[in-house]
């Protein structure tokens, strides 16, 4: 997989995570969401920071965070 495809995949992965974690059919009854989801969200946050840099290189979007700026 070349670098550009990998970078595009990072941005796509963020869009995927945004959908499948927060949306979709909700089923009730004995639903147990593993607490390890925290790891996934942490990973998602890291991907957000990483993908912003790569997306900037692609010219897709400007940097969302300046150096030292806290995410909102």
């Amino acid at each position, binding site marked *: 997989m070349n670098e550009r495809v990998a970078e595009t995949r990072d*941005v*796509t*992965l963020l*869009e*995927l*995570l*945004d*959908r*499948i*974690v*927060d*949306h*979709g*059919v*909700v*089923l*009730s*009854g*004995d*639903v*147990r*969401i*593993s607490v*390890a*989801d925290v*790891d*996934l969200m942490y*990973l998602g946050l890291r991907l957000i920071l990483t993908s912003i840099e790569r*997306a900037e290189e692609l010219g*897709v*979007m*400007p*940097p*969302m965070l300046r150096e030292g700026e806290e995410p*909102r």
Partner: protein
Amino acid sequence: MTEGHYVYAILARETSVPPGLTGIRGTALQMVAHRELRAATSAVEAIALPATVDDALTHETVVEALRQAGPALPVRFGTILADTPAVVRALAERYETLVADLVRLADTVEYGLSVLWEQLEPERTAHETAPSQSAEDPGDVSSNPGSRYLHARLAEHRRDTLRRANAEQTARDLDALLRPFALDSRWTIRPASRIAARAAYLLHQSAVEPFRQAFEEGRVLNPDLRFLLSGPWPPYSFVTAPAPGGAPIAGSGTTE
């Protein structure tokens, strides 16, 4: 070791499952039926499922493969039910809604749109630009730290108000361009320094190309904005959500 049923999607009973399709950690798919519905599931260690990127990708792979075979409602990632009777109860509890959604969302896809801007700060007042130029007048409130704080907060509020107004107008303009090609849309307007707004659009599969053409028109018409369009996705954002108390909520609108 306690096992549970990881649920990927809800299908119509007659929909065939692609041969060889496996779930998380390579487990075999199991169909749990209730009346005219089936839930696509696989066995997982119920308590200790560490969610990884690979799990997320597998979830999506299974959902998309099932949608190739027929209408399928994507289930939220990480949904694990205790056992087969629990899956059946879950299908029964929302049976009519799930059946209606299968019909409503058949042959549809979702597109995601993020709108970013190069934010221009609104014109600052003379007080904001020179709050400390008050030495000549001992009564000048700008020399008062409390007053300076309040004025700064007021200025921030005004900037946020202007930013939000700009974001809302941008969303209205873009939605006017794209909505004719969509079955439904959901906008989220929480403007930040770079993100103006985000949206999800529900399209019939036949409308994808004209929608993308309209999007390209919008891109050309708004050279001061940047866009991120993703899709097609299964219609995660447009399944009917249960309201507090159990009654389903459906329909379009703007969320904030």
